[in-house]
């Protein structure tokens, strides 16, 4: 089957039931997308499918079809991506860092939807992404900072 991942096309031969997460990690050697719960509960495996955040652990690769897949490795291809990554780095958001790829993917989508999210918007949208180290105060701040930077860049 053919997949479009991070602006490149890949031809792979796998069971269509295999979750996209494991295709990315094992077959396409893109380990940035993380395995956390395998049940769509933690958000660590979040990728963008045609720009929409999905839980790749719950997405059979056969269901992807012609949709384009964006992972953390190429999140800067999204309009908000570079601002989100820069803010995350500037504020040193990660502690252990394991959840942060998923956080960044969701935050990038959030800023595509809402250029100036309020705190309630941030909490509501980011609620699906667990951070076991509780870096939440900086996640909020980084999203606000990225929103400002993106606004200033437009």
């Amino acid at each position, binding site marked *: 089957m053919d997949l479009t991942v991070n602006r490149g096309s890949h031809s792979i031969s796998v069971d269509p039931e295999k979750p996209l997460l494991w295709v990315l990690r094992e077959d396409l050697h893109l*380990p940035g997308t993380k395995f956390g719960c395998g049940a769509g509960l933690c958000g660590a495996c979040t990728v963008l499918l045609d720009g929409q955040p999905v839980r790749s652990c719950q997405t059979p690769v056969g269901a992807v079809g012609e949709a384009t897949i964006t*992972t953390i490795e190429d999140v800067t291809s999204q309009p908000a991506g570079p601002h989100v990554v820069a803010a995350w780095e500037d504020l040193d958001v*990660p502690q252990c860092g394991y959840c942060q790829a998923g956080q960044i993917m969701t935050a990038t989508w959030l800023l595509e939807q809402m250029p100036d999210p309020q705190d309630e918007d941030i909490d509501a949208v980011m*609620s699906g992404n667990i951070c*076991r180290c509780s870096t939440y105060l900086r996640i909020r701040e980084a999203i606000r900072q990225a929103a400002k930077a993106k606004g200033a860049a437009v």
Partner: protein
Amino acid sequence: MSGSLEISRRSFLSVSLVGGAVLSFGAWLALSDEAEAGSSGAMLNAFIRINPDNSVVIGAKNPEIGQGVKTMLPMLIAEELDVDWEQVRIEQTLANEQKYGRQSAGGSRSTPVNWLPMRQAGAAARSMLVMAAATKWGVAFETLTAGSGMVRHAASGRTATYASLTEAAVKIAPPALDAVPLKPDSAFRIIGTSRRGVDTPAIVRGQPLFGIDTELPGMVYAALEACPVFQGTIAAVDDQAAKAVKGVLAVVPINTGLVPKGSFDALAIIADSWWTAQQARSRLKVDWDTGTLTQFSTEAYAEQADTALAQAPEAEILSKGDVEGQLSGAARTVTARYDYPFLGHCTLEPQNCTGLYEDGQLTLWAPSQSPERGRQEVAAMLDLAPDAIKIHMTRIGGGFGRRLMNDYMVQAAQIARAVPGKPVKLIYTRGDDMRHDYYRPGGWHELTAGLDNEGRLVALKDHFVSFGADGEPVRAAELEETEFPAQIVSDVHFGATYLPTNLPTGWLRAPTSNAMGFVFQSFLDELAEAAGVDLPTFVLRILGEDRLLPKVGRANQFNTGRARKVIEEVCTFANWDAKRPSGAGGRGRGFGFYFSHAGYFAEILDATVSEGGTVKVDKIWVAGDIGSHVINPVNALHQVQGAAIEGLAQAMIGQKVDQVDGAIVQENFDSFPLLRIEAAPQDVAVTFVTSPFPPTGLGEPALPPVIPALANAIYAATGKRIRSLPMQLQGQTA
């Protein structure tokens, strides 16, 4: 400290030129060969390599679990080496305690253990470079200065890069580490300045760093089906259907480490994909021999605890003075029962480990907080010599104490040996991770205290019920005789009854303290109320004069003056009103103080409780004393904020581990919730009180006070005492 010094001295014996005549750095060379093939830098000691372009590589020796140690320990070396942080690149060393000293991420010990040795390693290397310049230029050592990786002779204006001096420097006898002069604090340029995590740029770009990201040519994968009932063993296996799945390479019996050597309590399914291994796993048919182990359950424990608390304690922890006499003569007595559940760790990166067994040699890529202990366990299980095992330390997606245990290393080693020559990566599912943890043990406390007619605490009694055997607690169930305020009050009795369990137990961030802080600081709030004062005042009265209390057992020495200062500081910081808050509008404010892992922390918390019983934590104030320096302030802030919010998670969102028929019920984050962003407070404000003592660690001591501060805030808001975790208000999980 002497052990570390000795080990560091041994490290210095290996001064060498990489690619030069002397190649004595087995472990380090393995690392640098992989990281920088063809490099020709010079090793000044086990931790420092100077490259020809005058860039500097510093080895980070301890496991990085998100506590920032991979950044902080190299900062200490760079400071004394007199290089700019921008010149420095950090490499994780291999696990090799003979070379690097203690390599463990536990007990908030990395800072106190390494504060001097890491600085000495940097200072000694600097001294050798300066000596090389002095010899080269024929000038006195004392006339030279160093900075930014250069040596300067002010009188002549001569300068030399470290790189140009390394060839001469490595021939100089290393100075005695304990005699090498260290910088005065006033000269620090890196210590005390905020430095971003060295892996942060890679993390935010999704680059592979974690154990689970390990990828090797020809690698295969393993799933593990372990007996759900701890200590049960395999009775019978039908693995035909599993083996028939395309891509499956082998199904092999494994000892998880919970059963005697030679018996097996798990099956590993090895396949060309982890997904395939999991598919095949579901086709396994296993009968487990669980004998009487199914008798163990949460429900049975609660009944046994009730029975135990109605009787005298079976074991004695502390008995001093005449508690019963004091209680009978007390103006007022207060009795309360507290309890808390078993908890899991739930690191977001599930347990995993990669192994390669080849020609009697085993290589492991292990996200372990205690890799050397893992080496010993693997060596014992596989009958391998410890030095036949090479351990790469990967970045770790959360530790919290889970990875102080090394079951996944022992399992991956057995799996690797079953497929020699093939690297194999074992990964737990989330269900495996939750159902095969080493749990924070639950416990019950029946407390009684006596106050005299001036409201002074004159007697304290605790019947502690937890888990253990033969009068001894299981791992992480210890109640210390120094538990505050037992060391100060003159009449105290701590007794214990330990119930049998088959659950493996382990250390969870701020072990024992995360539970004891809740119990004792919440109970003290009850006593303060009975005494008619607020809790900070009550604790300050107990503390009395500034003094050092004698060290007892494993506990750190307690300095009442340092405790007093953080309490006073947080009260000022949060504008604490000694008059009890009214609880109007469901708002309340609570206080908690705790001393653990050598750190003194006092915290104040504002909470709002809705009529439905939903608790919202609005803000937390923290004052801490961890000694003379906060080495990396930005990371210190993050550690404290994370610890405080984690404490809330332990208390207010329903976290508990239930056991039925010997096995754990919870399998994912729907039944064992982790705290999500909307439950995080708006702010956790942190201030540090510095004191003239060597700096201590910060991963843990900020956690314990927040739980009683929350419980006491809820009492202030609602009049309802929280004596049981996870807390429930009006029938709802708060």
